[in-house]
């Protein structure tokens, strides 16, 4: 039963958060596999869509980028970037979108940095930049963020705020003029986290089997509430089968 990898557990943990009927915005890598898994496990009527404009792709093979030709096959609509981001900004459709993101740094309000470390004009380390992440974080109701659980990644202050979470707290988005919504969860290689309804601060919702809440805290650059955490159930044999045989049989991501 314990024959699973952390990456597989992370993917399943994200898939379980997707609700039937959601429109799922996917980035590259593990987020695509999570969205594919959700369709087989808990959200058969969810729709996978990509910022490149592909809607409801039939992913017979795992795409390695959101512009991979594999996302273009047997879609319901092949659109473009203008369409896809408008779908999220649009208040009729945007509220049904759940976005799956990743980042180099995250803070306690779920704001993300995927741009740089150090000074912006002469950074110590440069990353890819926003891509569509800032748009997703600005527009959609719920986001799930994948992170590596390391102290240098969970920071009190981001080097660069690329993608808005709750900004500086409960009224942050409203003050800035952003639509409602914001981060729903953070999934790492140790734990799952949510955001408090009132304070909008990150708190521990689940710890992976064999990992203590204290170890999770030891690997973060800020304190979070661990009093509400429960152990995350491991993937079931059926979930693992789906993941391995139907979502990433070539093992390109997992």
């Amino acid at each position: 039963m314990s024959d699973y990898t952390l990456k597989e557990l992370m993917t399943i943990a994200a898939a379980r958060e997707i609700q039937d009927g959601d429109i799922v915005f996917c980035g590259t890598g593990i987020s695509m596999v999570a969205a594919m898994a959700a369709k087989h496990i808990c959200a058969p009527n969810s729709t996978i869509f990509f910022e490149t404009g592909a809607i409801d792709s039939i992913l017979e093979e795992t795409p390695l980028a959101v512009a991979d030709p594999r996302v273009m096959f047997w879609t319901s609509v092949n659109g473009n970037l203008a369409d896809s981001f408008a779908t999220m900004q649009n208040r009729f459709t945007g509220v049904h979108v759940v976005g799956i993101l990743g980042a180099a740094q995250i803070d306690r309000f779920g704001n993300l940095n995927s741009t740089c470390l150090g000074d912006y004009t002469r950074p110590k380390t440069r990353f890819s930049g926003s891509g569509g992440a800032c748009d997703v974080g600005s527009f959609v109701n719920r986001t799930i963020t994948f992170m590596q659980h390391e102290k240098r990644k969970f920071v009190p202050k981001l080097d660069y705020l690329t993608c808005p979470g709750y900004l500086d707290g409960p009224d942050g988005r409203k003050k800035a003029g952003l639509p409602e919504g914001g981060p729903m969860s953070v999934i790492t290689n140790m734990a799952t986290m949510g955001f408090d309804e009132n304070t909008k601060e990150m708190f521990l919702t689940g710890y992976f089997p064999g990992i203590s809440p204290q170890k999770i805290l030891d690997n973060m650059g800020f304190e979070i509430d661990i009093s509400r955490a429960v152990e995350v159930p491991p993937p079931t044999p059926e979930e693992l089968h789906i993941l391995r045989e139907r979502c990433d049989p070539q093992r390109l991501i997992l």
Partner: protein
Amino acid sequence: MNSVSDKVMTLQDAVRKYAFDGCHMSIGGFTINRNPMAAVYEIIRQRIRRIHLYAHSNGQGVDELVGSGCIDRLEIAYGGNGRFAPTCVRFKKAVQNGSLMVEDYSNYQMTLRFMAGAMGVPFLPTRSSLGTDIIDKWGFSSELRKTDNRLPNEKLIVMDNPFTNWTDAAKVVLVPAITTDVTFIHVQKADIYGTARMEGLTFSDVEQAKSARHVVVTCEELIKNDALRANPDSNQIPHFCVSAVVHVPWGAYPTACYHHYDYDPTYLNEYRKHAENDDLYPAWLDRFVYGVSNHQALLDLRGEAALEAIRADARTGYAVGLDRR
């Protein structure tokens, strides 16, 4: 030159005619798909310098232009290349060593900026990026913007909704239009007049093309005007937007071209390994870019087996079962 005339020319001539030192340029495609790579390599061979490049997520093409020293300034949303380079390697090095000046926007903002250029309006509004450093941190300073009349004097502007909360939006971000001297796109089909058809996703190629003074279209297939007219709903670019048409089979290689070929995982992995090493990278450029006279010579160098491996399957439009590790 945008009339109904025969615009077919060689890629060498098209680049010589429409790209120049210091020009403002954009290239089509997205990360590992339909980048106009034959044109990118020709721009590198002609050693065009000080280019001001606009991109949303044009991974491979941007990285090769940056790596060969063609680009001074880059306005971009995403400098990554999917699984092949989470951050584009030469882009990362150039920003970190200070040789490339970058201005960051989001993908939607870059798309809107091209769209504004295509529409002939000075800006378009969005609700994206409110409260973020995309608004607060500028790569191009106010001083630089004042001295260069090809740059808008603000990166972007946040304003209260002038229609007072109409559609429940309190604030909007205005992003400035982009107009380029030249835009290069690679398409599946075009005719000699420049009418063009893309298959699969179009990304922002249509907006990019329409925001350019001159468009150079490279195409997999140069087909009869009547063949495009037989299915006009599938065509996106009208002839009067286009200045030059170049027939370049495999013109997006090593990126993918839907229905024709996949990306080449071997080339992209080898590229990354060489790009990561400053000692190896010049030899790579010498061999695969400067060392070949044109795109066909690059294809010959890669060999028939490499191309056959990525040829698209008729049903799916990509190379089924391709080893992509």
